[in-house]
């Protein structure tokens, strides 16, 4: 018994030494070696961190970001570090701190749920630059960036609206957040621009990344009569469901042609590479300023993947025409009259919804079958 007590005391001593030992120099900045090198070289030694919500192999959202990262490495030759499958919880905060500890000085956090944690860590580390994807918070050292993917979704809606025979379309969606709601609305407007009778049914999965769950949701939609499946999910699960059923699908994030060759028609896709290069280059040049970026097809962040042979032949011309209008600014997409699900006019004729309204979208347009909690 005495032995155990002795051991306990020793452990406590060790513990207290550790704690006091590490509490004192805490003020001195944990990454002491890095700044020295910075001082010597006029060009900052840049280490870029990427925090991903899913695994790189998801074939979707995270995959697209990682392609952007590879493009960045190739173009600028900077060192990058990554952490995949980070939960949108306190774990994210820890991962950010870990990355700073490992010398990262520019960090991209690529999921909405990382926003608050990014903000918290950004406040504590003013020397590190943070770029958060898909959120709205901004600090002196924290940008937010996103793309107007709804533009491409609108185009994909045109393809889907032309293809459907049952006039029922399924939409597998992750969370009831404005980003997703906006996408569903844009898609529906696109569908109904060519097929006014069609409806879009929505199923929520409450996960960004869960191949099985996403597929199940798609199957449920197919059982309800949908013959085109679109998705706001990070994996090709819904595409496979459509492929198995022998109907058609619209992908998301990346070109998903190979995952469902008989079903896949096109997909709104991301192209982050150029943006990443631009931002990191600005940091290297010392010209970086925090910003709130929301670019669309005009800048190339957002694109529509090439239409496959499965897509209706007449769709190509229609899409090209509208696409040109979007890039030129002629087609604003969310422009009145827009009715909500009850049929009441929410946006008056000719009125264009502001970005602010788009960023807090919390209602569905007419033609959507589904509920926002």
């Amino acid at each position, binding site marked *: *018994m005495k032995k*155990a*007590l002795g*051991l*306990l005391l020793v*452990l*406590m001593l060790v*513990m207290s030494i*550790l*704690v*006091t*030992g*590490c*509490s004192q*120099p*805490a003020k001195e900045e*944990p990454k002491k070696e890095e700044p020295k090198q910075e001082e010597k070289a006029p060009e900052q030694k840049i280490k870029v*961190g990427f925090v991903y919500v899913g*695994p*790189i192999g998801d074939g979707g959202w995270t995959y697209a970001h990682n392609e952007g990262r590879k493009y960045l490495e190739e173009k600028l030759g900077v060192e990058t*570090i*990554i*952490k*995949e*499958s980070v*939960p*949108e*919880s*306190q*774990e994210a905060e*820890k*991962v950010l*701190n*870990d*990355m700073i*500890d*490992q010398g990262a000085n520019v960090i991209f956090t690529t999921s*909405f*749920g990382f926003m*608050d944690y990014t903000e918290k860590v950004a406040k504590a580390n003013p020397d590190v630059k943070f770029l958060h994807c898909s959120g*709205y918070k901004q600090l002196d050292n924290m940008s937010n960036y996103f793309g107007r993917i709804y533009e491409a979704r609108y185009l994909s809606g045109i393809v889907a609206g032309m293809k459907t025979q049952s006039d029922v379309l399924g939409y597998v969606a992750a*969370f*009831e*957040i*404005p980003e997703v*709601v906006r996408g569903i609305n844009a898609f529906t407007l696109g569908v109904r621009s060519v097929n006014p009778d069609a409806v879009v049914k929505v199923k929520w999965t*409450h996960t960004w990344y869960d191949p099985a769950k996403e597929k199940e949701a798609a199957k449920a939609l197919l059982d309800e009569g949908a013959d085109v499946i679109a998705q706001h999910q990070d994996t090709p699960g819904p595409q496979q469901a459509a492929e198995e059923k022998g109907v058609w699908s619209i992908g998301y994030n990346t070109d998903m042609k190979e995952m469902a060759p008989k079903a896949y028609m096109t997909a709104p896709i991301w192209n982050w590479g150029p943006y990443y290069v631009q931002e990191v280059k600005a940091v290297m040049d010392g010209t970086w300023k925090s910003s709130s970026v929301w670019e669309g097809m005009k800048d190339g962040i957002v694109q529509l993947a090439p239409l496959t042979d499965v897509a209706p032949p007449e769709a190509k011309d229609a899409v090209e025409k509208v696409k040109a209008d979007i890039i030129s600014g002629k087609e604003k997409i969310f422009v009145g009259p827009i009715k909500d699900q009850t049929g009441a006019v929410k946006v008056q004729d000719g009125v264009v919804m502001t970005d602010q309204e788009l*960023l*807090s979208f*919390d209602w569905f347009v007419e033609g959507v079958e589904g509920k*926002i*909690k």
Partner: protein
Amino acid sequence: MLYKVVKRSEITQGKSFGIRTAAIILALLTSAVFIMILNLNPLEVYASLIKGAFGSNYRIKQTIITAIPLVITSLGIAIAFKMKFWNIGGEGQIMMGAFAASFFALRYPDLPKPILLSLMMIAGMVAGGLWALIPAFFKAQWETNETIITLMMNYIAIKWVTYLQYGPWRDKGALGFPKIPNFSDNAILPNFLGIHIGWIFALILIIVVYIFMKHSKLGYEIAVLGESENTARYAGINVKRTIIIALLISGGLCGLAGMIQASAVSNTLNVEVSGGVGFTAIITTWLASLSAPFILLASILFAALIQGGSFIQTAFGIPAAAAMILEGMILFFVLGSEFFIKYKLTKNGSAKSAAGKGEI
């Protein structure tokens, strides 16, 4: 057969330490092969595993922060295990503790800090204790299998928090993103020497639980009951009462761990708040052979493994799954070594004093 397995009747501390060390070395050697398959240098990976856990003040702090809930939960589990009540429900008890603490944090965000934190702590312990009380009651009353009930109740607790997160407690200001609002500053545990004061609780609790188990009447009754229910009844121990009180304490400690995680680490409630601590703590408790001081050691080592494992992921670009395989391999060998602490292999022909100390 060339070798045979013989039960050890007794083992010196030095010898068991030696066996554990050998197990770790073996684990490292086996993992080295795996690391080489990944085209990496094992020595570098191991060095950074240690560096990742203890290499800087920041990392030591992170390791300690990871160890805090492990220590407290392990202490709680140890009390139940001492009674041979297999409480697999630490995860759920943490969840419910975090839930009850969050209730006060969200409902009374403006209470003075000491009052609010005390309320949260009491709520956490009571909720964790009550959550453990349910299987304890069933066991005491109808001798149900506590392993299954505690395990199932984990899922109920997790789903309950999920429901709150997506439903009634969802943050209205998060634009539909399913999260529960962050706590006010008054509901967040303060730091002491750079780490949230959970570490002080953990150290104090180690001493308290040690004294409780070794020198209190209740601790003694728990130990007797764990060894033989017949003897306990014979000695006039109220078996039902002992089971229930022990589980209230066991669950209460897990609930406190939940409160600490919600308050100091997440600053809110979510399904990730326990992060598997309830299960990991079973391993640390077992490794520490239910002894409070050794729980500290086992928890720190485990936290270091988690922390270091996370570090090498980013440092070497190892996929998350591969890092987990490494952690799993090390764990496998260390747990496997427990077998050799209880048993030993003797070569046939050298069966000298095989059973050590027999009846004399």
